């Protein structure tokens, strides 16, 4: 029987090791898996690379992980959100590494990792600083940059509903990076607001199919992200 439910947040994040790459769902404060991130803070893994669109705001969740000194490198498109005070301080002090990736390329690179694409050419970024050092190829009348898959050891995902196989739905624009990140990690860990009976989700409206999910925990009343 496939039943990927775990009984605690600690169990959900068990086995995350120093030096791993963690994909974290969310855009702004929507879709951030706050409780899972806090479980990682409690768990203690360090020297992490995190991939997320923003670099955390306020003092909790992503910013909390940064403030706890666990993150070596951030891969993101937009670290300078309002309230990204923790990242700003660490970056100014040279204590954190930043890989800046255009948002669509960030998403497409993770999709490539999830879909078995070994690399792809995109015109985004061609001729800019963000393509420096990358292979450029003229295709279909336009310069393209070769971009490589971006795979996570772990993905931390916030979902709305889930079943014991790991099928997921999301709430509105909190969906954002989650379905792509769920595909792109070796170990995909999900916190869902509600776990329902197997068969309760309409097969035609499941957004993330079970095959992309490895562990599941119910968090009925998740905290908002980015608290001061």
């Amino acid at each position, binding site marked *: 029987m496939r039943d990927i439910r775990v009984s605690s947040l600690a169990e959900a994040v068990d086995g995350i090791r120093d030096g791993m790459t963690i994909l974290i769902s969310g*855009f*702004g*404060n*929507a*879709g951030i898996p706050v409780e899972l991130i806090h479980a990682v803070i409690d768990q203690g893994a360090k020297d992490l690379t995190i991939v997320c*669109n923003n670099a955390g705001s306020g003092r909790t969740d992503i910013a909390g992980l940064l403030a706890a000194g666990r993150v070596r490198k951030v891969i993101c*498109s*937009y*670290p*300078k*959100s*309002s309230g990204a005070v923790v990242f*700003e301080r660490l*970056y*100014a002090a040279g204590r954190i590494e930043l890989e*800046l*990736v*255009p*948002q*669509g*390329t960030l*998403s*497409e690179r*993770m*999709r490539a990792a999830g879909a078995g694409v070994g690399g792809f050419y*995109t*015109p*985004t*970024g*061609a*001729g*800019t*600083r*963000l393509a420096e050092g990358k292979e450029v190829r003229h295709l279909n009348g336009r310069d393209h940059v070769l971009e490589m898959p971006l795979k996570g050891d772990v993905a931390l995902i916030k979902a709305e509903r889930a079943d014991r196989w790991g099928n997921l739905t999301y*709430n*509105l*624009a*909190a*969906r*954002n*990076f*989650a*379905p*792509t990140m769920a595909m792109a990690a070796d170990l995909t860990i999900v916190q869902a607001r509600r776990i329902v009976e197997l068969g309760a989700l309409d097969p035609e409206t499941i*957004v993330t199919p079970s095959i992309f999910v490895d562990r599941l925990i119910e968090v009925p009343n998740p905290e*908002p992200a980015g608290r001061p």
Partner: protein
Amino acid sequence: MTLTREQLAARVAADVPDGAFVNLGIGLPTLVANFVPADREVIYHSENGILGMGPAPKKGEENPDLINASKQYVTLMPGAAIVHHTDAFAMIRGGHIDLALLGALQVSATGDLANWTTSPNLLMPGVGGGMDLAVGAARVWALMEHNTRDGQPKILECCTLPLTAARVVDRIYTNLAVIDVTEDGLVVREMAPGLDFAELQRRTGATLTLANDWRAIGLSA
């Protein structure tokens, strides 16, 4: 005279086609939506996964899971669709967005766009979806003040700031003029009322051509 931000936004709005799929960048472009005539059905795209975005919600009806790419609360229009980020960017990168309105720091005579960082050493940069939009949208209109605060031109033969994308801007709207980027260079279609071409050229860092059928910018706002 020069246009106010509202007048500029209204001027751009007049050109947004009925039925178009449009992405509005942060800042001045976002203002444009307020001036699009009510009888036009424009379908707004937000790169965090919304197609058919509506206006800001009423006070008290904000949903933290329904925000736009600028992280502002929004609503959905009837006909809206929610997609994931990769699909939202497939719309952009695949050329499906009819029109992207982007704020600009500089635009070159060949349509190069610089709008993502003023910093030569990339201290605290952020690129977001700007490069994707500039490269992917079917048409790109750049919106900006014609000059910097200290009077420097922002339309240049070559951009001096780090590029967002090369040869992507189709049209430039400033507080002084509406300028098309053409294969024959920059062509001025409209000028602010009372402005003369010599003055416009003086305030511009690239050679301009005045269209034969140029006219004064109509001010509706």
